[in-house]
């Protein structure tokens, strides 16, 4: 079974702090994704990566950056957390090829005070 793990299930941070969210997948997938999920808005793509050190902006990249130094690990960074970044963050991975689905981690619920 594909496993996608996220470093924390719940996280509470203060405004202005630098926040790291870590995601690890164990199936050698080329592609990894970070989404945020807010009620009534579905999932919105923040960034994705199709290879080590490669990244592309999604629909809402402002206020976020990412790092992919190893194939299995994809980190989301909030340089200076703000209250409007309080959300559920979901990581996903998928193999290359058309029609392949994404595999999701359990999510990190981040609260910024």
């Amino acid at each position, binding site marked *: 079974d594909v496993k996608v793990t996220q470093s924390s299930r719940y996280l509470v941070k203060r405004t202005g702090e630098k926040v790291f969210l870590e995601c690890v997948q164990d199936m050698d997938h080329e592609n990894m994704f970070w989404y945020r999920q807010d009620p009534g808005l579905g999932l919105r793509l923040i960034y994705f990566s199709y290879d080590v050190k490669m990244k592309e902006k999604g629909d809402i990249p402002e206020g976020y950056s990412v790092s992919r130094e190893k194939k299995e690990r994809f980190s989301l960074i909030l340089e200076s957390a703000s209250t409007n970044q309080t959300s559920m963050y*979901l990581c996903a991975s998928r193999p290359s090829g058309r029609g392949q689905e994404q595999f999701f981690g359990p999510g990190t619920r981040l609260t910024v005070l």
Partner: protein
Amino acid sequence: AQSVTQLDSHVSVSEGTPVLLRCNYSSSYSPSLFWYVQHPNKGLQLLLKYTSAATLVKGINGFEAEFKKSETSFHLTKPSAHMSDAAEYFCVVSDRGYNFNKFYFGSGTKLNVKP
């Protein structure tokens, strides 16, 4: 451009009755279509996917969906609801052209199952 519309934000059914969750999409290319389920405080789990083979797709837990190109629909059905089906369901479309890494999510349908 791709988009997905889930026509109902909430659906309530009684246990043992049929479930219908509606999804319409727009796509410039022949799409791949997916349904995911999310239980409270969990990640998303794949229920089923359509990628251009049979138009009637069977998934896990008794769910199925039919791809209707003429109606641009991919509705999710189940003959008999179970209490454990209470969750949020997302319809997703991805491009099978150049941007096949781009997935478009509907806003979700919350399914309530009454005893």
